Structures are given as C-alpha cells and as structure tokens.
C-alpha cells in the first residue's frame, strides 16, 4: 500500500487516527491517505482548549487550496491541547501526519468508543475499498 498505516493506532471511517497516551488522553490527527487526497494543506482551523465534543462532531476544519474538509472526533471528550505549530506550519500535516502533524489531544470520556474503532488491518482494507469505489 502506498500510504503509511502505522500499527498501534486506532482509525475511523472518516480517516482520522487516535493514539492512546497516558491516562485517558488520546492524540488525534488525519491519516496519510487523507492528507494525500487533500493535497497541500493551507490552513487548519483548530478548536479551543476546553471545548467538549461528541464522537462524530466536527473538531477541526482543514483547508487545502481548493477544498475545505471537516475532521471528526473519533471519541467523545474534552480538548486538552491543540497543536499550535500547525498555525505556523500547516504543511506539517502533509509532511508528518502521524508525528508533527498531530492536530489535538482530548480527554476521553469512554474508552469503549476507542475500542470500537478500526485497527491497522481493518483500516487498510477500508482504504483499499474506498480506492476501488472511486475507480
């Protein structure tokens, strides 16, 4: 597969990833597949620290030159940190979507929601299926 899908992360159908950190905090971003489809990221509209969001709600808005897409919360929770570096260097999201390109960290309300998400293999299949549908 031409896109990177690291092991150990959780994935949503809408191409976000969630990485478990200490306590009930998860780090959230978009996948390599998503950033590739989006093209060069121009601007990221981040939420405010303290915002409470439900699973599936729009948490950030990502702009490329010709498109605007929503990023959806993989789990319900409270935003505890946002990646301010994206304000200065939005291209970090393209260059390193799983590392410097992380978008925010949230405090999960219910770990169950995380376990309902896809893991590496399932997500890979999901991407393959999406690609086929587009042909």
């Amino acid at each position, binding site marked *: 597969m031409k896109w990177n899908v690291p092991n150990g992360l959780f994935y949503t159908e809408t191409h976000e990833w969630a990485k478990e950190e200490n306590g009930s905090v998860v780090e959230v971003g978009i996948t390599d597949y998503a950033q590739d489809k989006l093209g060069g990221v*121009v*601007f990221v509209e981040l939420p405010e620290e303290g915002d409470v969001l439900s699973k599936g709600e729009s948490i950030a808005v990502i*702009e*490329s*030159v*010709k*498109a*605007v897409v929503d990023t959806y919360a993989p789990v319900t929770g409270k935003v505890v940190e946002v990646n301010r570096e994206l304000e200065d260097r939005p291209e970090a999201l393209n260059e390193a979507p799983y590392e410097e390109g992380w978008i925010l960290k949230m405090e999960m309300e219910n770990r169950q929601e995380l376990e309902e998400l896809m893991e590496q293999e399932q997500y890979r299949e999901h991407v393959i299926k999406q690609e086929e549908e587009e042909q």
Partner: protein
Amino acid sequence: MSRFHYLPLTDEERAEMLNDLGINSVDELFTDIPKTVRFSGEMELPPPLSESEAVNHLAELADRNYHLQENPSFLGAGVYDHFVPAAVKHVLGRSEFYTSYTPYQAEVSQGLLQSIFEYQTMICQLTGMDVANASMYDGATAVAEAAVMSCNVTRRDKVVVSRSVHPAYRQVLQAYFDARDFRLEEIPMKEGTLDGEEIEAQIDDQTAALVVQNPNFLGMLEDYNGLAEMVHGKGALLVAAVDPISLPLVKTPARYGADIVAGEGQSLGNFTSYGGPLLGFFAAREKFARRMPGRISGQTVDTEGRRGFVMTMQTREQHIRRGRATSNICSNQALNALAATVYMASLGPQGMKEVASLCLQKAAYLREKIESLTGYRVVYPGPYFKEFPVMVPGAPEELNQRLLEAGIIGGLDLGRFYPELENSVLFCVTEKRTREEMDKLVHELEGWK
C-alpha cells in the same frame, strides 16, 4: 444579412451547424421546455433600435437631468463630487480590463491581479491597516459585512452603532441583521457626535462590535480618545467607517485602534453616478485576514521563481466554502477599484494631501461666510472636514428650489434623517468648488428670507 450586429452567425453557418447536429431547425433544441411553460408569441417590447437611434434616445433621457457638470453642487452625504483625472477614464476604457472577469485563471489575468494587489496596498497605506480586500458593493454593505464578520469572530450577536453614522449605513445594517437574528443597537448623538458617556453603558460582554464613522455623517471629526481600549476591554471589536479623502490629514483608524475599517471609496476616482456603481473598501488587522469577506489578491511565484499574483485564501469564499463562506459575495466593484488605483497613483501622497487640504480650507471658508449671515447658524462647533450642518431660516426644500433657479444644487435636507435637525442643511465643499461658486451661494443665502 443580420441586423443584430452582435450576433456573428449567418444563416449559412446556422444551416451547417444544424446539419452537423442532424436536425432541421433550432426549435428542435427547445423541445425540452414543456408546453405548459412555453412562451408563445412575441414578447411585448419596443421594436429594436439601430445604434444611432439608441444614442438619440439615451441622449434625450440624459439631457433631461440637471447634472453636476453644469451646476455646482453642495451635496455630499456619502457620495462626492471630487476631481477625477483624465487618465482614469483612459485606463478604465481598456477593454482588456473591463471585458474580463474574475481572475480565476491567474496566468492570463496578471494585469488585473497586480492592479488589485496595488489597490489593496494603497488602501492599507491610507488607513494604516494590514490587509484589504478587492472591494465590496458600497460603504453601507462594507460596514454591514464588517458587523457580520465581528459577530462571527467574537461569536456574539449584538452590534452597537453610533447614530452619527450615515443613516443609509444604519438602514443597511438593520436589514442585514434582521435576516440573521442579530441585534443592532444605537448610541445617541450628543452635539453632533457620538455620546461618549452612553457608550460605556451600552457596550457589554454580549457586544460583538461598535461601529463608528469618522468624519461622521454630519462632517464632524470625532474624538475617539480611550474608545478602542474600552471596546477591546469588553472583548468587542471596533469597526470604523472612514472617508479616504480625509486620511492624508486625519488620524488613521489603525492609530485609534480600529480592528476593521470599511467605507465608501467612490471619492477615489469615481463619479457620483446617481449613487451607483460605488466602491466599498474593506481592511482589517492581520489576525482577521482569514475571516474577511471578498476576494483578495496575493503575491506568489511561478514555476521559474518569477513574481506573480493569484487570488488567495479562496477557501473563505462561496465557490469553495459554500454555506460556510465568510460571505456570499462573488462579483464586486473591481472596475471602480481600478479607478481608485489609477487615482491614487496619479495624485500620489502630495496630491492626496492637497485634495484633503483644499476641502478642509474651502469648507472652512464657506462655513465662516455662512456663520456671518443673520438667520444662519452652523449647528455644532465641530471640528469639520469637508461638510457641515447649517440651521437655515426656513424650509430647506424652498431654499433648494431657489438655489436651483440660480443654477446651484444645494445641500441635503437633514430633517429627512434627524428630526432634531429640522430646517438644517448639510453643505459639502470639495476641492472642485471655487471661491466664486461659494460666494454666489452665500449671496443667494443672504438674499433668501
């Protein structure tokens, strides 16, 4: 032979094309219009005119109007009779500019994109702000969109506007707000300027913005000492509508803390045009760039590192963000902005300063002469820029009728908009008014009543 000289297709060509399509008549291309909505017969319109007949007809309509080239005018109130250098017409007349559209294909629109970039720069230079857009419809809608933007940025739904702001701007604000369930409140005037004491009371943590105008509608320069601090202290934005002609002499809105500047740019190289097309200009602080409405031209490079210009931050706009766009604006007043660009480039800093000074000095002259007449009184102490309200000894309508008979277009009847200013007239003096014209006006005023 076609009598419609804008349509190149000859009957021969049409026949060839129909043949290519395998049909016999163009009517076959309209069968998708159901009979129930098909228009039958011919539209009832006057028969087509040839070019010279059209010119005669339009000339006859134009001739029936008293206009500013024939009659010196003392009307201002948002639209002004300023000098327009001949060069403006010659640049605007270049059809590469006026027959083009929005520069979506940047590589063949560098002319327009660069001139917009120059326009944006000069608006910033005049106002002191960081970023300007390529134009809005007019001063009123520019102010209305500034107010809407403030609500979006602060996530609040109330805007406070000074009653000394142009009545039309307040009316347009009201209409835009009525549609959104935003609230508009007015701050009263005191002695012809915004009431400083009232402001503190009315601006609270629900207020998105305070909208002011300087010089205000009555031509008076307002005192904004401490205003921005107070407004910002409540988490609100300061929106200032300004007269670009005044800016070479008057303190810039950037210096008195404005966050957004909007206003009427018609004075910069455009004619009064019976109120349209006008030129709304819009500028803001850097941090608000991505929240601004309207097109913005930005500098970039091509594949070989050559400087060029493109429409930038297009994701704010309707063609990309659609329902979540910063505004629905698509077509703007591009050609009028080009006129402004040519105007500012032609006058330069010295010329613009001279225009401002001439307006200031001449208005002061007229003011002094009118003050010396019995029965006439300049309503408030000022200071004034290029217009001022005068209490007159009778009905302004009658006065203006008399002035018209003397070949002068008199000022605006203020009683129309401010009940407390019944029998007051707003006189405007631009750099185009000569001493003779002003003396003649004073003579007529003296002779009346």
